[in-house]
């Protein structure tokens, strides 16, 4: 089986690393060779962050460069645009409709770009959803990442993998039920 690459992008503190862990645990259970790459430190402080996950029969590089990712999960719409060059033309993007102004925008030094979702839809096969709203309706903005993960699993098509089991073993016990609800809500909300 050929290697598949996913890139998870967002803003420090949005839960991208936990989401990647849920993904990786499911892939491991299914017997894939898996590699995951993250960057810590300076970029944590409200900056732009990206995590990559790769799987297949045998994976060598834990990172890919431009034009090489099959799938993107974007926790924020401008971040989808920032990392779009990493996606293969015609690749799949799952995008949170949520927009978070950067510090430069908040300070009035730059304008948040218009038309991020439309631009992504024109270039890639996109699933978009308002995961922030769904998470709030479920009772906690903190489960936004697993709402997005649910949508991502629909785009992935790896239906033989028991993602619910992966969520159970990855998230803290007291948040399992909330996150399972988030996963199902995300799957249901993913609009192609």
């Amino acid at each position: 089986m050929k290697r598949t690459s996913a890139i998870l992008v967002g803003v420090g503190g949005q839960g991208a690393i936990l989401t990647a862990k849920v993904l990786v645990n499911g892939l491991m259970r299914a017997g894939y060779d898996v590699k995951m790459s993250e960057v810590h430190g300076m970029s944590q402080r409200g900056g732009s962050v990206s995590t990559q996950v790769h799987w297949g029969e045998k994976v060598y590089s834990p990172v890919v460069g431009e034009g090489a990712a099959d799938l993107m999960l974007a926790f924020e719409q401008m971040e989808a645009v920032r990392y779009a060059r990493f996606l293969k033309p015609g690749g799949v993007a799952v995008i949170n409709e949520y927009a978070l102004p950067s510090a430069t925008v908040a300070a009035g030094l730059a304008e948040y770009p218009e038309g991020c979702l439309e631009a992504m839809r024109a270039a890639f096969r996109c699933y978009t959803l308002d995961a922030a709203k769904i998470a709030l309706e479920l009772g906690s903005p903190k489960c936004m990442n697993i709402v997005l993960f649910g949508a991502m699993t629909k785009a992935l098509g790896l239906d033989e993998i028991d993602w619910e089991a992966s969520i159970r073993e990855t998230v803290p016990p007291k948040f399992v039920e909330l996150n399972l609800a988030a996963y199902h809500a995300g799957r249901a909300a993913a609009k192609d």
Partner: protein
Amino acid sequence: MEKHLLSGNEAIARGAYEAGVKVCSAYPGTPSTEIFESLPQYGDALYCEWAPNEKVATEVAYGAAIGGVRSLCAMKHVGLNVAADPLFTAAYNGVNRGFVIVTADDPSMHSSQNEQDNRRYAKFAKVALIEPSDSQECIDFMKEAYRISERFDMPVLFRTTTRVSHSKSLVTFGEREEAEPFVYTRNVRKFNCAPANAYLNHPKVEKNLAALEEYGSSCPLNRVEMRGTEIGVITASIAYQYAKDVFPEDASFLKLGLTNPLPMQLIRDFASRVKTLYVIEELEGFMEEQIKAAGIDCIGKALISNQYELNPQRLRELLFGEKPETAALPVQAVSRPPTLCPGCPHRGFFYTMSKGKDFVIAGDIGCYTLGANPPLNALDTCICMGGGFSVAMGMSKAFEASGQQKKIFGVVGDSTFFHSGMTGAAEILYNKGRVIPVVLDNHITGMTGHQDNPGSGYTLQGEPAAAIRIEDVLRAFGYEKVLVVDPQDLAAMQGAVDEALAAEVPTAIIARRPCLLIKREKRPTGLCAVDTAKCIGCRKCLKVGCPAVMIREKKSYIDPTQCVGCTVCAQVCPVGAIGRKEG
């Protein structure tokens, strides 16, 4: 065998455990920090600690290797600059039991001030260099590193890069092995680096390196993957993983794990079996230069840049000119730089500094480097750990010598103060510097992800420990006024700055408030909100540079999902439009 998903750093900790390591000391630094965060799980099997700096950590670990147990220290690449002194002497002296120094390099400077290639240190200091390329190798190579250290009587430099340290891959565990016990007896000839002993030690080092080079041709760290004879690739570390993705299936590989000294006979044999030889390495042409000097023709840095990290797509483009295909978008993302968090105690200090005329502020390494960013713009320099005080000192002497009127502040954090800021504080006092030293004491080593330090009151294991009081240290030095102030109280912060500027005696400031992200600290939570009827849209609150404060429809707006109720924005509002409520 059960598989586990471990980062390279977690795997190094596991490898140290399996190698029977008993004493470990480190100073945190990205991308090395998680090695030591992963050690306390091994409980009583090993002793581990955060040292005040990398030099101390290296000396502690080396002392343990002299004392007779396997030992480990770890640091980021620039940390080895601090620890270079003991490294070079340990190389001459040798060890009683295995001694491994982990250096985690940071190509592309994800979280660093340079991308120095620390493989050069191994050659410079004359020690063994071992480079893993994934997490399983981090475990296996650690165990071999200790065997090499003991067999060839030298420290081993164990070098990772960000992508080795922070990538996770599947590993299987082994059993812990115990090193043969060593009973310490005094050996002055070996461990006292007096000139007469050093004179005798140098030839020993050369002999051991020659023996290690010979061992390199048969050792399990170096392996030949022979396929076709058209293309041969010599590579090591993470570059091996990239090259495997880029070269055709029938390319042959010489994959090196022991890279100083290079096994030149093995390289010569491999080179003779292939038509075209590539040397694929990130950053400097460390292997290529030596291979070429040995008279072996190869392709490497003529095509591959010595700047920034590689990846398979970049490597393919550099080698074969194949540009990756990407989609062009009609919109562009605006920059999203890291910022001081909402509620960050440093904000009040930098906001106060941002209002000062003729202020020159020499900074240091830590979250507070972000005080240089707009709208605060309140930092002139950031050079190295502990440099805040001493660089300010030099600038003050320059201003005196050239008749420039400036008010000079040297700024370090609490962890940085204990690391190497204390010597700068002594320098300012001793040599009559016209500098106001400021310690931004947030009770934690923040930027690296919240590690304890000699001022925080806890050990690496989270157990209570002596908390050294910075004001006691400064007063003991001879600072007659040490102004301790809460930086979140802007009036008090301004008062301390004014008082320090007016003082006739040596004066220092400690801006003290714990980092908001320290988990064990319990604090009241709150939320600020704007009364839009009162807000006049003057934008003064934007000047504090808080990510939670923004403009919506010409009035200030505070994002409730980000705000923690610190009230710094409320304190600068001229019309009292921002209020705080508990909860």
